[in-house]
């Protein structure tokens, strides 16, 4: 286990409060928790790629960062209008 994987484990712990907010809050709180969790998941993947020493895996956090933006916008729109 190197420094990068240790930091990835630390970020994994940070996902727990986001999960608590997502499970226990109301709809707006859940949306905010989801957005923060997606940012943390992107950082987690970045650290795992560096920790395993596989530069080609860096496409995963890159893709997740773009897709989480789109997903967050769609959820925000739904919360605003329909849900």
């Amino acid at each position, binding site marked *: 286990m190197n420094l990068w994987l240790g930091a990835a484990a630390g970020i994994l712990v*940070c996902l727990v409060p*986001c999960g608590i907010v997502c499970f226990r809050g109301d709809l707006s709180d859940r949306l*905010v928790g989801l957005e923060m969790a997606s940012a943390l998941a992107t*950082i987690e993947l970045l650290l795992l790629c560096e920790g395993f020493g596989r*530069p080609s895996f860096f496409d995963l956090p890159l893709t997740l960062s773009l897709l989480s*933006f789109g997903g967050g916008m769609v959820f925000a*729109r739904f*919360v605003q209008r329909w849900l």
Partner: protein
Amino acid sequence: MAYHPIITGCLLGIAVLICFLCSLGLMVMRDPLQRLHFATPIVSISIGLIVVAIWVEDGEWQSRIKAVLVALILFFMNSILSHATARAIRIRKLEHWPVTPQEHMPLVQDRGEVGAQKRSKREKS
């Protein structure tokens, strides 16, 4: 390959600490608009420190450039997403976006009135 474990450890430790404090703040706050603010240090400071750590330790240009891209995307997209989320929460709660006189926001109301005056002048001319 350059390898600086102390610098990398410090940078990663600070980044993880900021993430942890922000996630605790997310859990402690009561209002969703207050909670929304706690994502900003993560996508600005923490990701910046991690990118610096990658540049210090990793010699691969592919990793370095992709890490910078991820940081830039997170930084710029998060501001847009936060605004969209705050707007959605406000419209959901109050069922309107513009500020009303009953909300007692003098600065915003003044701006709104100045903007309305400018618009009416433009329409007249």
